Every structure is written in C-alpha cells, then in structure tokens.
C-alpha cells in the first residue's frame, strides 16, 4: 500500500476514534467539573465556561445619566439607545458593550469588553454538603451565612460498604464450597441440581422480590443488613457457582487424588489446594459481584428503602434526584461520591475486572 494512503487511513481511524472517545468522556467530565463549582456558578453558566473563553469583562464604570424618563433615547459613550436597550446591553461599533445595571434612578453604567477569561473558581463545599448529615452553616464569600441541609451521603457510603463486602464474600464462600462439591464429589442428583443452576442463571430477579419481601416483613429482616446480604447471596449464587465450577473442575485430577491418598479430607483439599489455585477466578467474581451490589438499586430499595439509617448510596441518590433535582452542584457531587469506589476498582484491577465482567455478562 502506498505510504501516503496508509498515513491517511491511520488519520481517519485515529480521528474517528478520538471523536468517539471525546463524546464518551464529555458527560463524565461535565459531572466532575460541576461538582466542584460553587452553587451560583453552576446555576448561572454551563460547566464548560471554566474553559478559557471570550466573555464580557467590565473595564469601566460610569455614573448613570440624570433625568431619564420614558422611552426617550439616551446617548452614552457615543451610542444611542433606549433605557430598556441599555438594560439588555448595547454593543458599540468598536465591540464594547454598554450595560445599564439597576433601575432608572439608582444604578450604574458598565462598559464591558470581550476578553479571554478562564475563571478558576472551585470549591469542595458541595461535597461537604452532600456528605454531612443534618444542617450545616457555611460562610459565603460575601460574609453572609447560609444554612444547607446535608444529604447524609457519608453515612450512606458506610451503609454501602456494610452491605457490599459481606454481600460479596458470602456468595463467594458458599459458591466455592458448592463448586468444589459439584466438581469433585459424587452424589445422587448432581446433574439435575447443576442443570437447575444453569436454568437459574438468567432468571429476572423481579420474580423473587414479592415473596421474599413478604417473608422478610414477617421475619423482621426488612431494613437489616442481614436481609440484603442473604438476598444478594441468593441472587448472585447461580453465576458464582457456575463461574467457579468452570475453573475448579479443570484442576488436574492427579493433584487432588495424590492429596487424598495422603489422607487429606475433602475440607483440607479444598482449603489447601483448590482455594489457592482458584484465586484468579475468585478475584474476578469478587470484583464483578462487588460492583454489582455496590451499583444495585432495585434490591437495595426493595429491602432497605423504607429504613432511613441503612439506606445505601444509590437509594439516597435517587431520592436526591427526586427532591433536589435542580441543585445540580449537589447531584453531581453525590453522583461522583457513588462512582469513586467503582472507578478505583476499575483502574486498579482492570484485568480481573474485565475478566469477571465478561464471564458475568449472563447474570439475571
């Protein structure tokens, strides 16, 4: 292929890829930037205005002309317009803008010029507000006080951790034992049980919510960590066993046989041979399940939604979006709080993450 054409081809490929990546990134960048902008800025201008751009900057202030009445034209700095015209800003032939701030009697004239600006005005207050519980009073830049109702995402974060870690480890442990049993123990009904497991892989969990919730109400498990752990364990198990079984059943028979000949029990073989060898598949599932539970809203809201002090991040965020839907500085900060752990997991453990996700794609 001629070098020139190849070069053009590379340009087209990389150019298209760059455009797509840019489109993919922009929404998240908008969220991040807005979460660290002061409330007033977020509501008055788009987040992209933190980028260098041309904007009118006041260069001179003048006192207002006296005796202005009605709609008679006024001349300021050689430009004629009505009062209402000046109120909206009048652009002079030389590019300056003349703006009347205030009313007819008290006010000022601002002469503005287009300049390059890159306002650097960031704050962490949105995070303070969303993380804290109860009311907090803050001092504004002008010295005035402002009371903000905290969104209590700090304790929701704790709840998410308290829900997610056991809801990951419990299914993982139960699944590891079961996978070993299916792979290396002979008992009646083994095939039928495993077929059932395969069937359960894609079952929509909506089907389970109604009866389980009804039982939980009777057992007082509604609004408890234990109830959610058990539910997530049940819903996550088919996939977990399926994945771990796939790996454990491939472990060479000789390894296990020789240990058994040495007098090792199944428990010992499991603990000393199977588990250490299965670390990659266990890690993959752990990451998949961790993120699944962390990001879950449906199960959490069903079993924890009614109890204020155990609500996890996703529940609080949905509530925030409902009650304070226009407070973008808080919503964006809150969304980022919920994303921080998944993003860390994503960047730190990408290899395991991809593997677990691909294997886990069939989850119901």
């Amino acid at each position, binding site marked *: 292929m001629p070098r020139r054409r190849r070069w053009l081809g590379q340009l087209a490929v990389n150019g298209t890829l760059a455009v797509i990546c840019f489109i993919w990134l922009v929404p998240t960048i908008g969220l991040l930037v807005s979460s660290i902008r002061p409330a007033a800025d977020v509501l008055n201008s788009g987040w992209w205005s933190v980028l260098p751009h041309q904007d009118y900057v006041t260069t001179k202030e003048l006192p207002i002309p006296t005796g202005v009445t009605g709609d008679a034209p006024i001349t300021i700095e050689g430009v004629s317009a009505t009062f209402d015209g000046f109120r909206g800003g009048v652009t002079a032939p030389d590019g300056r803008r003349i703006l009347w701030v205030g009313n007819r009697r008290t006010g000022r004239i601002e002469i503005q010029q287009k300049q390059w600006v890159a306002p650097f005005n960031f704050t962490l207050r949105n995070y303070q507000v969303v993380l804290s519980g109860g009311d907090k009073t803050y001092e504004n830049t002008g010295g005035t006080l402002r009371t903000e109702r905290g969104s209590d995402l700090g304790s929701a974060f704790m709840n998410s951790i308290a829900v997610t870690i056991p809801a990951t480890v419990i299914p993982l442990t139960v699944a590891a034992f079961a996978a070993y049993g299916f792979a290396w123990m002979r008992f009646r009904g083994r095939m039928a049980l495993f077929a059932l497991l395969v069937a359960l892989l894609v079952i929509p969990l909506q089907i389970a919510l109604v009866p389980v919730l009804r039982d939980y109400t009777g057992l007082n498990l509604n609004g408890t960590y234990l109830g959610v752990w058990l539910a997530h364990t049940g819903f996550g198990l088919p996939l977990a066993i399926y994945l771990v079984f796939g790996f454990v059943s491939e472990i060479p028979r000789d390894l296990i046989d020789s240990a058994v000949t040495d007098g090792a029990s199944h428990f010992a073989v499991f603990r000393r041979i199977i588990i250490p060898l299965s670390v990659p598949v266990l890690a993959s599932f752990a990451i998949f399940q961790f993120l699944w539970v962390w990001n879950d809203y449906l199960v959490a809201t069903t079993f924890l939604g009614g109890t204020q002090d155990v609500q996890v991040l*996703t529940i609080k965020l949905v509530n925030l979006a409902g009650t304070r839907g226009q407070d973008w500085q808080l919503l964006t900060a809150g969304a980022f709080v919920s994303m921080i752990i998944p993003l860390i997991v994503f960047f730190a453990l990408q290899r395991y993450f991809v593997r677990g996700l691909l294997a886990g794609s069939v989850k119901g």
Partner: protein
Amino acid sequence: MALTEPPLAAFNDEAPPEARARNLALGIGGVILTVVFLVAGYVILADKASPIPKPLITLLAVIWGVGGLLAIFTVSNWIVEQLPARAMQILLPVVFIGPAVIFLVYFLVLPAIRTFATSFFDQDGAAFVGLANYIRVFTDDATLLAFRNNLLWLAFGASLTVIMGLLIAALADRSRFEVIAKSIIFMPVAISLVGAGIIWKFVYAVRDPSSPQIGLLNAIWVGLGHSPIGWLADNQPLNNLFLIVVVVWLQTGFAMVLFSAAIKGVPADLLDAARVDGANEIQTFMRIVVPTIMPTIITVATTIVIFTLKIFDVVVVLTNGNFGTQVIATEFYTQFFSNRSFGLGSAIAIVLLILVLPVMVYNLRRFRQQQA
C-alpha cells in the same frame, strides 16, 4: 521422603488418641464459640438504638457476616468428619452444597413458584381471579405502553450497542492508541445506572429560554439558533431514545471488549486472502470479520436484550416513568410498591420470566450437549 510426610489433614482415623482427644476438645469449643459469636453479633447488630458509632457498626457487621459464615462451614464440616465413614460420605456433599441449594431454592426457585401462584389472585391475595391479571397486563394502556417502550429499548438499545461496539473495536484494532481508547469507552461499565442516569440528566437539562442553558445538549441546540427542548419530556415517544442513549453509552464498552477479543481471533490468512482478491477494508470487515465473529455478536446481543428487558434504574432517575417512558420493570415496581397490587405485579414479573425463557432453554440445551 514422601512416606514420612505428615498427612494433609489432622482429622483422620490413624491419628494418635491424644491428638483425637485434643481435636474433640477444640471442635466442641469451636462449635460453642461459633454459636456464641453468631447470637451475640446478631443481638448487637439488631439493636436499632445502638450507641456504637456508625463506622464501628459497619466494621462489626462485616466481621460478623463474613466470619460467621466461615465458622458455620468449618464447624459443620468438623461435625460431619466425626461421624463414621459411611455417614460422612453421604453428609459431606450436604455440607459443601447444602447451603448453596438452600439459597437457590429459597431465593429463586420458591419465589418463582410463589410469584406464579400470586399472579392468579387479586390485589391483596385474598380471592382467586384466574387469568384476570394477565388479561389486564395485555389490555391495560399503561402496561401496553410499557411493552411498546421495551420494544423500543430492545430494537434501538441492542442494535446501537452492537453497532457502536463493533465500530469501536474495529477502529481500536487498527489504532496505536488502542489501550487508552478502549479504557475510555469501557469506563462507564464500572459505574451504576443511577450514577449514569444523573450524568445524562445533566446533559439533557433544560431551562427557561430566558436563562442560560446549563445542560450541554440544549446549550449546543440553542447555540445553533433553536429554542431549548425538553429532551426527556417532549416529542413522545422519541424521548425514549434519549434514555436509551444512556444505556448504549454504558454498555458499548462491554460489547467492545468482547468484539475486540473476537476480532483478534479472526485468522490472518483469511483477511489476507480477501485483500489479495481486491477487497477494501470495509468489504473485508463486512464479509469476512463480521460472519466469523457472528457467535460473539449473538452472545452480546442476547446479553443486551436480557439486560434491556429488565431496565429500571435509568428510567427511575431520568423520568421516573413519566412522559410516556415507563417500561416493564418500572411498571412492575409501580404496581407492586406504589399500588400494592401484588397480583398484577406478580403477573408482570411472570411475563418478564416468560420473555427470558427462550434464553434459559438455550442455555440448558447447550449444557446438556457439553455433558454428553
């Protein structure tokens, strides 16, 4: 010296008597400790008015849940190992697989049966109503709208995700920036649908024409000289497409990774042969690569179809089912939680189950083939 090596397990009949006695003492101590640990932990954690600070409670809950389970497995295994060999052989699979079976049966199998039964009863489950709930599901305006929207989700969500995933995988495969590009596209897969919903709700934000538009899409739209649009509320049913975009954004990375791996597996001589025959890059891709990776495309499409059938969080965050955007899963939630219509809610859940049944049958058939 393999013969003199100690056996892996201490629990074994040839162990000397004093070791057995020690084992027994340790084991019984373990059983008692486990019971105490489980009960005490439950009592402490169940106390709603507990004075213990939140982080400590969190830590305690985690230790209790995880440690308790490990203790249960160890202890029950120990008990079974004390039994005669014959009983042990029968009971050991129960120790290993029993807990999993209990979870599967209680949380998935029984609920499916119970939901199926509930779907034939009225609102509070008192009177048998036959197929009335199902008739309502298929005649009610609200559920019919939900079905139509789910169809939109299936058609556009699945096809757009597959197309974008293929396009990006193919481009990345030819680019020097493959790793970074794939990372960027893949990142949304890690975050929650709730978080993604908020990200995009902000992109779609609409305000009165007199104020500056802070939503990106309307800022561009207004910049082009139009008046702002409520992307999520106006132009029904096209507004559903703007919700679908969110899931395409989130899922394309997943599709891309699978396609990327599959594309790399296409034999090079196949591609070379096509090029020698004069096919250009696009023809090679459409006629050689796509047919070769068709199994992967079908897997991805199936996964996305199942995923979009149950789509819920995104709709709740973006529109809460208003403006004609409700789907099956939000309709289920509304009937079940807001209207407390357990019968109707159950019928909707069963319809969802019936919709994924073909996939279930396919999986089972493949499993049977693998075993044969």
